[in-house]
């Protein structure tokens, strides 16, 4: 499963990526996490607040570190 974390390298963006890695590990899912730090790419997803999370090409979350349960929901 492809997950992208959008954000200019701020602390919350890193926390988001780490959280997804951890939750995926706990749930036994394999995910590839790509951190998108380039501003042009970030805005091309139409988000106005970071960190944002893109799953399967769709923005599923923006503006904060997601909760544990939200991440589990995306992993399906």
């Amino acid at each position, binding site marked *: 499963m492809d997950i992208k974390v959008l*954000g*200019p390298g*701020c*602390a*919350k*963006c890193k*926390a988001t990526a780490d*959280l997804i890695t951890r939750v995926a590990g706990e749930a036994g899912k394999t995910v590839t996490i790509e951190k998108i730090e380039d*501003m*042009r790419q*970030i*805005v091309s*997803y*139409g*988000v*106005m*607040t*970071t960190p*944002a999370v893109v799953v399967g090409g*769709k*923005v*599923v979350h*923006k*503006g904060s*570190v997601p*909760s*544990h*349960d939200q991440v589990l929901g995306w992993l399906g």
Partner: protein
Amino acid sequence: MSVQTSSHPAPRPDWVWHAGLVAFVAIWWLVYRQLIPFSELITSLFPVERHSHTGEAIAFFFYDVPKVMMLLTLIVFAMGVVRSYFSPERTRALLAGKREGVGNVMAAGLGVMTPFCSCSAVPLFIGLVSAGVPLGVTFSFLIAAPMVNEVALALLFGLVGWQVAATYAAFGLVIAIIAGWVIGKLHLEGWLQDWVRDIHSGATAPDAADDAPLTLVDRYRLGIEAVREIFGRVWMWIILGIGMGALIHGYVPQDLMARIMGADAWWSVPAAVVIGIPMYTNAAGVIPIVEALLGKGAALGTVLAFMMSVIALSLPEMIILKQVLTLRLIAVFVGVVGSGILAVGYLFNFLF
């Protein structure tokens, strides 16, 4: 900032939250009223004369730190709840296609209300401009958002008094409105970075999925989250700032600041603005120092100008904005906002 690891605990009924909030505010109020006796008690435990320089500094520190922390908790929580009614997407919808003038006023107000962190400044800027919000209106938003923030207001209210807090908020908004309007009148759209102009003329960004409506308890949670996040960010600055303030309070001679930063020294206002730009503490670090300076005879206008300059014109923010604005446009931004701050500084030194 912390990450939740637990799964859902059994949900509490709503009334528990409402009752909890009422109880918290009541306890808050009782404790707040005991702060002076508390600080005197702590000071009396130190083996120093109460009215010596050291005694004054210690009493100042142990009164102001808890006071500011308590005020900050309440104000940040309230702002967190209020802000949950706003979102960048909603702000964009409200501002898109607004004319300059009305748009600038609305944008400055929304800048205060919209949840926003400086690391989102660039996507937010682009989101606004690409949706057809005029450049000047976007600037009104971007100037008001950091300048009139809840940390600054809580600290001013707690340390200097509500009059100065209200004055600061009012003139912060006025500067944001006028500076944005002036930048709009200059028609500097051509001075954006090229790639931003392309987005501007191209397709508008798609709307991200709308979130489910929030309940009041959700909003309380957001308020608590805001308190936790802001405290994590500023508690050290507050202690450092109040520590510095305590030293100034206890040790700096009474008339020194009156001479350097008094109303008679005309050059002190521009000097305060220029010194303020490269300084990047935040409101939490600078306001306790400001309070101590005021106590030593510094003029209100000079101090206000210094504070606004530190908070609204910061180098790190300009480096972030460099991704979307050309240097020329950043220079205009600094020039226009700086002039506004100067005008406020002189006005206050003249009036008070």
